């Protein structure tokens, strides 16, 4: 089996491998999908959280800004109502404009800097300038009183026209100490006489800053204006690189992207922005917040490990499971393979056996037929010669005795040959039964008469219980042969002073013929073989016979649709039973 099943095993292994591979593929796909989902989820969550934070910061900033703007507006309204400023503007006394405003706005220009949280509540301007009715800056006569400003920065205050509403802008003042950004608010001044805008006052403030709230670490905020980044909490070189990065993607920003990823100090950050001065006459400026992505990235990293670990475990488990499942699945397959292999082998063996048997049978059949024919011809010659010799009268009586014995033996031999021929015809299937009703009763009668007439030393009593007109279906020749065989055997294997009992009866559409005789029984271990060819029970060894009779009788009985059985053989009694198909006597009568 081990040799036979090796292809089956390799097939099973292949099946197992395929199953394992499929399962691992599924698990790998699930893990990868998990990775993807987790990554997306984490980055989305982080971004949403940060955006939420940014929104909160911005809204807080907006509130502060609004507060400051309203304060500025109020101040400007008061200022515009001031007759001196009005007079200076209306009466073209520009030289008196700043001196007039100076007293009015003295509190705004106090030197002390308010603390960060007071920036909004206390209006503290860094500088202020008036715009003329064309939007150009009216130069201050004594700049330190009104906030020193570089001429380049002052130029940034100018507007193309006087605004109708408050405008917010951001200007960059470069001086020896570096760049400073100011938030500027241009407030229109309406003429109290005409209601027209006759000027604008531009205040410069320190920009409001987003105060980092607890919970978000590393958040940095600044302002992007005039293509420059003002992010005071960032180092100069970092700010520079970030500014370049922002400048590179600023077109993207303008196209509505809400956030972008930037690298600061080699670490990824998420940048949010919001325009501080939408629809302003001043150039656009953006509040910019950068949030370090370290925390979410660390989280993502951790999650990746977790998912990776889980995926690995799952993979391992899947591998084991797939192995077991494959084994489980493949066992019947394997068994099937083994079984089929076994079956094939058995079939081959059976086929071979059948072939050899057939061949043997054919050979033996052929042999029987050939032998019969080859034997019959010389026997006929022999018998004819012996009969011719017997008919002569010039021999002494011993010679006649001899010749008679020889002739008897030729007759016996002829019977054997006849039987062999018949058997071989049966074996080859060439024997055709020409079935017709045969009067079994008469047949038995005739053969019993013949038996009694035999010149035999045995004294045997014959009991006969055979009703008349028992017809069986069959060919007379062969039926007669069966009966002859049985009766001859009954006499042949009898003892001196024994008996023969022949009974016949009709039962269930069959005729049962029982032939029993006294005499030594057939040994039990030989009983099952008595119907085999050339077998003779050991008991009858001293009796004439060739071991074909019973075999022939049974074969013929079977051929006639009947049977021949040994009923019993014990205690000085051996009994056979012949069954043949009955024919109703009424159907025979007309013939």
């Amino acid at each position, binding site marked *: 089996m081990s040799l036979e099943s090796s292809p089956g095993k390799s097939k099973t292994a292949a099946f197992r491998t395929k199953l394992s591979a499929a399962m691992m593929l599924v698990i790998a796909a699930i893990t990868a999908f998990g990775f993807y989902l987790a990554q997306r989820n984490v980055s989305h969550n982080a971004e949403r959280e940060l955006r939420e934070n940014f929104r909160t910061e911005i809204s807080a900033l907006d509130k502060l800004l609004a507060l400051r703007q309203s304060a500025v507006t109020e101040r400007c309204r008061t200022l515009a109502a001031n007759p001196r400023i009005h007079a200076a503007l209306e009466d073209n*006394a520009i030289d008196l404009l700043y001196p007039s405003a100076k007293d009015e706005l003295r509190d705004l220009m106090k030197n002390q800097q308010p603390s960060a949280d007071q920036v909004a509540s206390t209006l503290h301007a860094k500088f202020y300038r008036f715009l003329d009715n064309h939007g150009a800056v009216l130069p201050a006569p004594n700049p330190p009183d009104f906030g020193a400003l570089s001429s380049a920065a002052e130029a940034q205050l100018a507007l193309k026209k006087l605004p109708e509403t408050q405008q917010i802008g951001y200007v960059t003042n470069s001086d020896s100490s570096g760049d400073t950004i100011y938030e500027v608010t241009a407030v229109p001044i309406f003429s109290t006489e*005409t209601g027209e805008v006759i000027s604008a006052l531009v205040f410069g403030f320190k920009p409001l800053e987003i105060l980092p709230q607890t919970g978000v670490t590393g958040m940095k905020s600044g302002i992007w204006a005039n293509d420059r980044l003002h992010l005071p909490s960032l180092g100069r070189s970092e700010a520079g690189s970030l500014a370049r990065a922002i400048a590179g993607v600023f077109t993207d920003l303008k196209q509505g992207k809400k956030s972008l990823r930037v690298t600061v100090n080699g670490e990824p950050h998420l940048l949010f922005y919001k325009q501080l001065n939408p629809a302003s006459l001043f150039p656009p400026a953006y509040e910019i917040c950068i949030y370090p992505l370290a925390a979410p990235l660390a989280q993502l990293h951790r999650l990746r490990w977790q998912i990776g670990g889980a995926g690995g475990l799952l993979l391992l488990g899947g591998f084991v499971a797939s192995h077991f499942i494959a084994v489980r699945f493949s066992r019947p397959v394997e068994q099937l393979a083994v079984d089929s292999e076994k079956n094939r082998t058995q079939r081959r063996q059976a086929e071979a056996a059948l072939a050899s048997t057939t061949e043997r049978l054919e050979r033996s059949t052929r042999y029987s037929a050939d032998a019969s024919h080859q034997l019959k011809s010389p026997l006929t010659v022999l018998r004819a010669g012996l009969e011719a010799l017997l008919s002569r009268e010039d021999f002494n009586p011993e010679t006649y005795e001899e010749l008679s014995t020889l002739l008897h033996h030729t007759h016996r031999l002829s019977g054997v040959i006849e039987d062999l021929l018949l058997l071989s015809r049966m074996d080859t299937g060439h024997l055709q039964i020409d079935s017709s009703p045969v009067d079994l009763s008469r047949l038995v009668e005739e053969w019993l008469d013949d038996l009694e007439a035999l010149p035999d030393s045995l004294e045997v009593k014959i009991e006969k219980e055979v009703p008349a007109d028992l017809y069986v279906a069959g060919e007379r020749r062969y039926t007669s042969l069966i009966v002859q065989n049985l009766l001859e055997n009954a006499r042949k294997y009898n003892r001196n002073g024994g008996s023969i009992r022949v009974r016949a009866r009709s039962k269930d559409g069959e005729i049962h013929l029982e032939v029993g005789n006294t005499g030594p029984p057939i040994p039990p271990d030989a009983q099952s073989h008595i119907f085999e060819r050339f077998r003779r029970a050991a008991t009858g060894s001293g009796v004439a016979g060739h071991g074909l009779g019973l075999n022939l009788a049974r074969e013929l009985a079977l051929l006639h649709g009947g049977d021949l059985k040994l009923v019993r053989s014990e205690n000085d009694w051996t009994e056979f039973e012949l069954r043949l198909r009955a024919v109703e006597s009424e159907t025979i009568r007309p013939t």
Partner: protein
Amino acid sequence: MSLRGCLSLSAAFALLPTAIFAQASIEGRVELPKSHAAPVMAKRYEIVTHGGVLSTEPPVAVVYLEGFFAKPTSLPLKQIGQKNLTFVPSLLPVQVGTKIEFPNFDDTYHSIFSYSPAKRFDLGRYRPEERPIPSEIFDKAGLVTLRCDIHEHMRGLVLVLDTPYFVVSDPEGRYRLRGLPSGHYAVKAWVDSKTTREQPVELKSGQTAHIDFP
């Protein structure tokens, strides 16, 4: 407005001490803008602005003769009072060099000042009983806008002229200048802060020239 010929002899203010030498006169009519039914600023104030242009309400004109005249040795003291939070009169033409007092007739502080190029001054806050009465000498020709630092709506106009011959028209625009010297002159009509019309005139002694400002 096309009424003409109907010359009334309604007297202009006799302001000129030299009138006794005057031999020529000018009379006529200045076409004035229509009175605004609802002025931008409160009606009770006589100086109003339309698009930054100061004028009186109801509109009046100041007609004056321009030329080279001998400087007077002394000029009369003038007064513009503050009464009911208005300047009274709200429009006062004076000759260069005239001193104007600004008495406070209200029960509140006033702080009269001017940023006009023709005269910048600042009287500061003062009460009605302030003595001496705050005053300024207007020594440069031009229009001076008077304001009050406390009452931002108060407006007054001082038209400082380099001539002794001027007169304020009546609300219909009619005027008459008398006691004028003969000769070639330009006669001008100030209508508002941005509008001054001008006509040449040939004055002959004993004659009255008729000049209309359409």
